[in-house]
């Protein structure tokens, strides 16, 4: 099984929904080949965000990428967004099928 899987980073960002456009387009600029977003609600340091109201909803962004891109995305989040926005981020090592799908843009941005 492991033969077909290559290790990549999965970055998961949970944040207020008004950042959807900003973060996903930044990730693509940095070189991620894609992203996935779903709607969420939750609670944390900034209190309850129950999604009953658009201004009050969270999203959950997932970005699969290699380590170099991941580092640059985490940098961006820390520098630009962490101080003022509701946000939580975690990173996992995952095995991906068809790793070449996640490379073309990454290599562009590194080349």
């Amino acid at each position, binding site marked *: 099984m492991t033969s077909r899987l290559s290790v990549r980073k999965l970055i998961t960002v949970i944040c*207020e929904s*008004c950042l959807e456009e900003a973060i996903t387009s930044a990730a693509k600029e940095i070189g991620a080949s894609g992203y996935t977003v779903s709607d969420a609600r939750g609670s944390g340091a900034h*209190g309850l965000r*129950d*999604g*009953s*109201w*658009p*201004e009050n*909803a969270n999203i959950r962004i997932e970005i699969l990428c290699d380590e170099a891109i991941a580092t640059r995305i985490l940098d961006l989040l820390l520098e630009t967004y962490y*101080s*003022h*926005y509701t946000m939580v981020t975690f990173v996992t090592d995952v095995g991906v099928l068809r790793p070449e799908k996640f490379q073309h843009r990454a290599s562009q941005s590194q080349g």
Partner: protein
Amino acid sequence: MSDPVILFFILGLIAGLSRSDLKIPGVLYESLSIFLLLAIGLKGGAALAQNNPSALLVPILVVTFTAMLVPVLAFLIAHYVGGYERADAGSLAAHYGSVSVVTFAVGSSYLTRLSVPFEGFMSVFLVILEIPGLLIGVALARWSAGDTRWGVLMHEILAGKSIVLLVGGLMIGYVSGEQGLASISPVFFTLFKGLLAIFLLEMGLVTAGRVADLKKSGIFLISFGVIMPLISAAIGIVTASLLGLSVGGATLLATLFASASYIAAPAAIRMAVPEANPSLSIGASLGITFPFNITVGIPLYYAASQWLLGASL
């Protein structure tokens, strides 16, 4: 008080405060706000079609100019009296400088109920007034910071949902005229108040959720949420009497001036002034000013308009 539309707001408030599991699905809320914006736009457009739009030029300029006083005053009060930093004072200024579509809808529902006529082009003012107050608030917050991307911000506001639907509705209504709209009027006009009632039920629930924020925010913010609309409404009524509007028109203009935005402003401020604390300004505009306006404010502005414009006859 016994306008059923307001009773729905109170029902939502009670349900929220008593921790009912009643929830209006987010999608229903979004659908209803699309509906309300389009309907108000269409109605205004059809009214415009019966007037000569060029006659509105001077009133629009006058109203825009006096309306700019509102965010400036709001900023000064919040910064110097309330002691808030530039960011938060600017955010409050933007919220109170812009307008609330639903407060406007409740105001026109109030007048219709009392059979008080008003100028059909009032919703043109609604559109016009949404933007400048917002920009002034951002400018005051960003003063000397100088890193605002105004282009992006303008696009965010102008291409924002509420402007697109209001202006779009206005233009469709203007092009089609009341006759042309006949086939779609069962949806956009006949259902208006019933759907507004359901929308206000949701607003009550949301407002109830803001009460916790308010407890934290203290006496200044609560007073601000009541006094600021009174000041703005006064400016609005004076403007209306300058322009020779009817008593109904003056009531609605006062309502517009007094109303604080909680849809367009929060989104724009979140992007342009992220260091501002959103629960302050939404807490004040939604938790205090909105319920104040729809229950106490509007009847008051009507009484004041009657008194002032009756006197000036």
